[in-house]
């Protein structure tokens, strides 16, 4: 392939990934690395570098919209970013130590896990509990706008959330993804933060987490501008289109199809890793 064809095809693929990712809420970053390595035969390190850069673009681009809506909790985000940035630094450090085949297997596992998480609908019983001491000390309890005015919420199990966030950060740095699914699990499941606040705060944290490993990637030469250019521009435009297009009726089916695709890519990544398809 020549430069023109390659750039155009990668741009188109990234656009579709970004569009579907934001429309379904599953994130486009997670399918980029398999897309680049499986279909475009890109070396895993270059793919991870390009993916990470695009994660920063979509996170910052959509965070701008969320910050204004007042759902995200800056204090929770900031505190947990300590966990994710240290994790990300560690994960980025590991990419040079862990063999690519092992990274591919971990990647496949994470892909299948994120597809699984998105399929689960989990009704939460809202048991009224007294505010958690640590969360109160950390001034994390907050409010957010709801259909019926302003709703207040309490935050629980901060250490558990902090722990899961460290893992989310490490995976982000190791795999070049936003690991939004795991971030939401940490906040929504462990810390019992309302879903809307969890998702927007997670999105707000993804860019900072990714920036923590991006510096390491840059100094290792993982970030190739000629590859990252079409990936970043494609994902960014695609995800902005995805947030604007409202196809409420078809989102459910689309979600199922897209998570099916994610599972297939996960299996393919695992097979590649197991058969030693990546060096």
């Amino acid at each position, binding site marked *: 392939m020549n430069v023109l064809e390659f750039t155009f095809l990668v741009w188109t693929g990234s656009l579709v990934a970004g569009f579907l990712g934001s429309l379904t809420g599953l994130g486009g970053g997670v399918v980029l690395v398999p897309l680049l390595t499986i279909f475009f035969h890109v070396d895993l390190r270059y793919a991870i570098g390009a993916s990470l850069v695009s994660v920063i673009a979509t996170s*910052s681009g959509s965070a701008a919209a969320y910050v204004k809506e007042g759902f995200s909790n800056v204090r929770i985000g900031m505190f947990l970013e300590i966990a994710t940035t240290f994790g990300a630094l560690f994960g980025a450090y590991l990419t040079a130590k862990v063999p690519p085949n092992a990274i591919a297997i971990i990647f496949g596992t994470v892909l299948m896990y994120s597809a699984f998480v998105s399929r689960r609908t989990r009704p939460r019983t809202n048991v009224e509990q007294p505010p958690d001491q640590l969360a109160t000390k950390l001034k994390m309890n907050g409010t957010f706008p709801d259909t019926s005015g302003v709703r207040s919420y309490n935050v629980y199990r901060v250490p558990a959330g902090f722990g899961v966030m460290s893992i989310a950060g490490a995976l982000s740095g190791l795999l070049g993804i936003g690991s939004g699914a795991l971030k939401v699990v940490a906040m929504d499941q462990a810390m019992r933060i309302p879903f809307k606040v969890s998702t927007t705060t997670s999105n707000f944290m993804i860019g900072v987490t990714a920036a923590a490993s991006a510096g390491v990637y840059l100094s290792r030469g993982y970030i190739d501008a000629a590859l990252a250019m079409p990936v970043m521009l494609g994902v960014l435009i695609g995800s902005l289109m995805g947030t604007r297009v409202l196809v409420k009726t078809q989102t459910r089916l689309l979600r199922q199809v897209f998570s099916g695709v994610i599972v297939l890519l996960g299996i393919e990544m695992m097979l590649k890793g197991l058969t030693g398809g990546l060096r």
Partner: protein
Amino acid sequence: MKPLNDERVESLIANLLRAGVLISALVVIGGGVTYLGHNPWAHVDYRTFHGEPGNLKSAHGIVRTALSGDPRGIMQLGLLLLIATPIVRVLLSTLIFAMEKDLMYLGFTLIVLAVLLYSLFGSFLIA
């Protein structure tokens, strides 16, 4: 405790993020068009990892290469600006917490800021 959800602060952060993404995208597009115009028919192969040349691996090297008009350097500068956007946001949060005299959160943001700056400027030590 003064709430941080002050509307002015929020729109400041939102505008900063939006501007950062927009500026970096424009720089990447500028470099990309030059790059595509220079060698559209060259063969592409990303199968093997070579790593980027030394001048595109550090912040000051990227700025220098971009200023010399090199298309790859310009694209890389756009990506560097993108990476810098969340860092500037954290810096802004640091200033806001300092103004609110929230010392605990000032400490937290300074830790995050230190990790980010270390990654961008000091990580060659572990890479």
